[in-house]
């Protein structure tokens, strides 16, 4: 199913500040507000591939929650797929979020061990009122797109390896042909060889669906394969943004410079394998 040229805005955050209330003192009589994101602005157009790069504590998880409609920011505007998502009452937000494909970080926590893979992947289609056979078709197509064999549909998550679980999650995220794909550390839990497979897979999918793809990661090297533009988060603030290649070549902010340097492992040049050149 084609989508008319997605030049619409997928996500826009304008000067968003968000945080959490933390219970303080005995019996949580008082609650302190801890700000995690400060004045963050982000814009993702339809069909764009953007990376949000941040390490632990940078606020990237909070950013995801804000985009998913799970955490109302204290300040700022949030527009997701054309809707001001926080103007919609919580119970109705699914009408927007169901157009998003979200792949969470930990596959062990994202798959219901009591459901078969087929049911897991079919779930996002439940509100679409499609005839049974069309649902089945889509599920099978999704499984093929993630390069898994159909037989996996009958298994329970316990039978799957880490890489397979990740693919099932991706299949679930794309079965309803989302306009926006949100990936939370899609390769962090994977082995190097599986990581490469998943990276190639994700790019293939994004090309086919022509959806906007936002990858949240701490790994700059992986990000360069999954995004054209990047936003670097540090302690809740955007310290740099722009085309990823630019940032890598010429980092402007202090943090970005340190980050880029640590990937080339600084000091002595590591021997570069012959096949690289």
């Amino acid at each position, binding site marked *: 199913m084609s989508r008319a040229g997605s030049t619409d805005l997928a996500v826009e955050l304008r000067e968003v500040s968000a945080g959490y209330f933390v219970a303080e003192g005995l019996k949580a009589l008082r609650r302190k507000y801890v700000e995690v994101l400060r004045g963050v602005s982000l814009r993702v157009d339809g069909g764009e591939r953007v990376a949000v790069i941040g390490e632990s504590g940078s606020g990237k998880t909070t950013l995801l929650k804000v985009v998913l409609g799970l955490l109302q920011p204290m300040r700022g505007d949030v527009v997701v797929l054309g809707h001001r998502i926080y103007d919609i009452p919580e119970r109705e937000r699914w009408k927007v979020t169901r157009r998003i494909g979200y792949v969470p970080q930990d596959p062990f*926590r*994202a798959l219901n061990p009591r459901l078969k893979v087929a049911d897991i992947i079919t*779930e996002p289609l*439940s509100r679409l009122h499609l005839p049974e056979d069309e649902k089945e078709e889509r599920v099978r197509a999704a499984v093929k797109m993630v390069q898994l064999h159909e037989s996996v549909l009958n298994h329970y998550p316990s039978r799957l390896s880490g890489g397979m679980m990740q693919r099932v999650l991706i299949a679930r995220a794309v079965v309803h042909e989302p306009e926006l794909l949100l990936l939370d550390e899609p390769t962090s839990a994977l082995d190097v060889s599986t990581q490469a497979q998943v990276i190639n897979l994700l790019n293939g999918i994004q090309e086919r669906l022509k959806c906007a793809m936002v990858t949240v990661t701490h790994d700059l090297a992986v990000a360069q394969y999954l995004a054209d533009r990047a936003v670097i988060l540090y302690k809740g603030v955007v310290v740099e943004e722009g085309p990823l290649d630019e940032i890598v070549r010429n980092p402007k902010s202090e943090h970005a410079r340190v980050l880029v340097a640590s990937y080339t492992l600084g000091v002595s040049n590591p021997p570069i394998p012959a096949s690289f050149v």
Partner: protein
Amino acid sequence: MSAIRARFNSAAGFLDLAKRAWKKSARFRAGTLLVGIMVSIAVLGPHLAPYPLDGWGVVPRNAAERAGKPPCPEFPFGTDSLGRDVLSRVLVGARLALVQIALVVSVSLALGLLVGACAAYYKGPVEALLNYVSEIFLALPAMVIALALRLALGQGLHVVVVSLILSWWPWYARSSYVYARAVVEMEYVLLARLAGVPGRTVLFRHVLANVLPPVLVQAITDLGSVLLEASAINFLGLGLPPDAPDWGIIVQNGFRYIVSMPWISMFPGVFILATALGFSLVGDSLREEMDPKMRRRWKLWF
């Protein structure tokens, strides 16, 4: 990696769990055997009893000459003070025993699971209210409730069953709440909600489905404990009428004659014990099988 898989497996396949337990644990086999015997007796009881009428509590016509006989070939378990064959009474009693505990545990399990899961899922005021209510019931001992019901409603099965349900469900509610709290934070619940799956469906498909297995195993062990409590309530005369074919009642009948005719109380007592033990063994070994880490530590020390 395998240890994690084993834990996953037990959630997905109860039968697999049982099969594994059967292979590995002698306790499981012993327990299942005991339970199997008791269930068969419960089903076939009235047909196996040599004196079925005695079993149901009817005093035989030739009571005077029959009464108080010690175990002999004619009456393998002896006769009670009213001349009834104790063996028959015990065999028929199996049915009531299992009916009582099945009713109590299934209803309180269902109620407790639902309350705990709702509290964890809906959070906020619902959570506070449900927890408060279950705490109140948690504080009430079955005996006290039974006493009150007995006075209000008179004798009968309903007294035993209702008082036990009212005092047991909060334990399952609490257990369920604890597990459900962890499940509710799982990403698969979040994914379901983002996809627009209605709350009730999420509650059943994701939360209850994953809270059930661990609590269920606890419930199996509880069947034994409930039997002991139910027998106690009947023993005290707070539940079933004095002629009812219930093990607790039979023990009570024989209590006055405990020195002169010990067999009246002894045999039903042994059956109560054996049944409770059976369920306890089954539940215990299932629980052990579910938790692979504990198993490995056992090997370390033994």
